[in-house]
């Protein structure tokens, strides 16, 4: 199992991802076979560098994986993130349309190499080593060098602490007693070949037992209906990786907050916090409606159904409420039903920020004070998540919760922070933000888009045995 599944490498703050195309199949295979991927078992303390590799469906095709094997991968993965009807339903249209992406559409990558290191010097050295190693068989696609730049205190570029709600995972998740999920999520939600929250196995790619190389893979677990016949489990210890490069318009974000606060209602930082669902220091609005804590917070054990059913503290349409509605899905569902359903749509996030900070302090007050573009630099977030079922987890959340104009009790809202915007005269506009309040709510209409999707793809992060199988000679 690749180590990325069990850890996010908080201790390796420097990272770069290379999006590559195969130019020489034999050389690419050699490189993949000899790549020293960091295994999950390797202790974190003994590590200065971590290496991971993931492949797209195009990459597997290019490596001539047999068609009968390829067909067992999930449909979402095979079609790709930029398949037209998928783009529409995910909200990857208009400003986010694949035709406008910097990478992932005009030239889809085959392979993604992910390098993490303890320092910039160590990262550079490892990158040079890898470039020399893959150079004969792979080349970078246009804009394929994905640099990252960690912001202290877990912040993302708008100035909010991020990555607080990563779900605890049975068997390998870290527990700090501060989670919403008191029972850890089943590992099969995030790794193929293990029991998931349905107490079954997610569909996993397989190899016929009689095929060359199948003997080196573990057998499929006996399952109710999938696969229909015993086979070798190519997915075991692997998973799917969803990657989306999101550019963040930081000056635009804070300029909007400043403008709207001048029109009355709430202070700019409060309005931004209402959209996010947490204060910049990470404290949740549900438990700190007035922002009373000054300390950085990882507080995550809060609920919605009783504490804030009408969204008066944390708006129904806020980003964190959409990303994980916890115990309140609405539409007459009980808390128990909501939790049971929401558990089945969790993602393991491994995001990394990129670009320079808009203001070195990352203090929203400073960013507000200078909320005019001062430089023409790209900054944003590499949204990366691990899921065993792209459709049930990532796409469900994106369609039904993030992007839906009628999420919860809403009519025309979208995710205020990361959502795409459908505007009038589209009959299904989602460019409003409803901020519940006493005595009556305030609506923010014609919301601009604060993030733009500029690239993305679905990858398969193979287990170590599967990587060897993929990299073997499959013939024409």
């Amino acid at each position: 199992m690749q180590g990325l599944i069990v850890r996010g490498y908080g201790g390796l703050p420097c990272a770069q991802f290379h999006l590559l195309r195969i130019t020489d199949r034999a050389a690419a295979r050699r490189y993949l076979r000899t790549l020293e991927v960091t295994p999950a078992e390797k202790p974190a303390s003994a590590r200065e560098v971590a290496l991971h590799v993931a492949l797209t469906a195009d990459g597997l095709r290019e490596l001539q994986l047999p068609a009968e094997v390829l067909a067992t991968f999930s449909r979402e993965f095979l079609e790709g993130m930029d398949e037209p009807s998928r783009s529409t339903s995910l909200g990857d249209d208009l400003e986010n349309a694949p035709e406008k992406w910097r990478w992932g559409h005009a030239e889809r990558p085959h392979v993604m190499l992910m390098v993490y290191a303890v320092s910039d010097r160590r990262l550079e050295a490892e990158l040079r080593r890898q470039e020399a190693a893959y150079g004969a068989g792979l080349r970078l696609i246009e804009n394929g060098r994905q640099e990252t730049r960690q912001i202290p205190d877990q912040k993302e570029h708008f100035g909010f602490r991020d990555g607080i709600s990563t779900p605890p995972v049975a068997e390998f998740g870290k527990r700090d007693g501060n989670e919403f999920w008191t029972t850890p999520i089943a590992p099969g939600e995030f790794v193929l070949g293990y029991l998931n929250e349905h107490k079954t196995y997610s569909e996993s790619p397989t190899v016929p037992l009689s095929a060359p190389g199948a003997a080196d893979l573990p057998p499929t677990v006996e399952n109710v209906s999938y696969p229909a016949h015993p086979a070798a489990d190519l997915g075991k210890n692997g998973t799917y990786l969803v990657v989306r490069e999101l550019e963040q318009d930081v000056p635009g974000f804070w300029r909007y907050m400043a403008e709207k606060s001048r029109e009355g209602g709430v202070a700019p930082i409060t309005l931004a916090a209402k959209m996010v669902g947490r204060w910049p220091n990470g404290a949740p609005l549900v438990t700190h409606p007035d922002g009373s804590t000054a300390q950085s917070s990882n507080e995550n054990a809060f609920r919605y159904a009783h504490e804030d059913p009408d969204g008066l503290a944390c708006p129904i349409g806020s980003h964190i409420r959409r990303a994980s509605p916890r115990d309140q899905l609405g539409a007459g569902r009980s808390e128990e039903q909501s939790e049971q359903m929401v558990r089945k749509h969790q993602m393991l996030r491994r995001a990394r920020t990129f670009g320079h900070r808009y203001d070195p302090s990352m203090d929203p007050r400073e960013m507000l004070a200078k909320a005019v573009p001062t430089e023409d630099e790209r900054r944003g977030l590499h949204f990366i998540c691990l899921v065993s079922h792209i459709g049930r987890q990532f796409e469900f959340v994106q369609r039904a919760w993030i992007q839906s104009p009628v999420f919860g009790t809403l009519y025309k809202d979208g995710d205020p922070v990361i959502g795409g915007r459908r505007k009038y005269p589209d009959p299904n506009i989602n460019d409003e933000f409803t901020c519940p309040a006493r005595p009556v709510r305030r609506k923010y209409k014609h919301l601009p888009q604060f993030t733009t999707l500029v690239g993305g793809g679905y990858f398969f992060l193979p287990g170590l045995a599967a990587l060897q199988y993929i990299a073997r000679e499959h013939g024409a």
Partner: protein
Amino acid sequence: MAHKVHAGYTVLAPIRPGHADAVSALLRTFRATPRRLPFVDVPSLHFATGTVLPATSWGTEPLPATLMVATSFCGPDDVHVDELVRVAGSGLRELFAHCQGFAPDASDVDLAEFLARHRQWETFYSGMHDLTRADVLAHDKLRTEIEDFIDRAQRDDELPSTPTAIHAAIRAFVGSRADLRWALVPDRRPASAFWARHRRTIRLATLLVPYLAGLVVGTAMLPFGTWPALEVAVGLGWLGLFAFVAVLVVALAGVFEAERRQTFVAGRPPDEYARALAASQCNPVINEMTASAPLKEGDTRPFVLTLALWIIARAAEGLPIYGSLNIPTVATARWVPVDRSRRLVFISNFTNAAEPYVRDFVDNSAQAVNINLTFGWGYGYPKTRGIILDGAIADPNGFINVVNTNQQVTELWFCPYAHLSVDNINRSREIRNGIAVATPGEKEASQWLTLL
């Protein structure tokens, strides 16, 4: 005042041999040119689906290609049929001309009779009650105008500070608008609505209750005298009851045995087909799904399915058999037994894209039991145990596969308010009911304002 009970009207007409493709093409043409089948002008109509159920078989028994026209509507049946014939008669004639037993030159009366003769009973669920299409649209307009009023008042700093004062200001605004003033009058449900919704259960109860009560009383009386006629009647009564129970036990045993023997579970459908389905169901708010499949093996399965659907239909009508059904995100759903219950068709209008919608069914175990009960009959559905156990609960992947396999790319469907979820519709009605209250208390007004 006519009632506004939401019901389904499903017409099934076997297609003339060789005409199925022509009907499909015609339905697609009507979708592209709605004026040729102007459902939009049928006032009582909420949703409509037109599709061809393909020829298939149940075991060795062939099931013919069949045209299905399914509408959901509010109000009396005869009014709906009259509107359909009057407004959409021309297009319907074009369609049914491809069906057996229909004369292309049928008069309006003939067409209405044809619809009635080919109407199929069904289990119909509605997520919104006692609302006409005009109500839905009017409530949406009312809500939008109220929202705009609040936005303006907030911008101009003219909004009062207490909930009751805000409610009064909104009422004054609504009263000042001739096109909204209707909302100040409380909406009342006519008494006829109860009969319209529950008439089937009431009719059955008027037969069953006296029968069972007579049986109990008659049996209790027998030890206290000699009444030969009563003895015969009670004997026959018990015989009838035992006969029904015996038939039910045999039929259930047949289903359980067929469950035990089931080997086939649908696999993953071709990706191209799944992609075509997904592409046809990616509207941001309301989508439509039609799935049809012959039943699984088992000679007694059609009988048990018919009985189960009948009972579920009564529950869906809201009688406390096991409480009124609540299927979140579903505007309408119907289960139609076709070809003498050899085939089951499911049609739904729902909020969300189809794939998340289907996932919703199996995401919690209580719901998955209902799904087994209502969907578990179709060929390829994961193996159930005792009708409601296992199935989608034990094999959610198999459930998704069978739904995708049996779904159709519906040729024609219509929804007059595809931007409103069923939650939106019900919430807007609460807003409308709240504005009709002349003087709410502070708490009531405050709660009402959270709807906005």
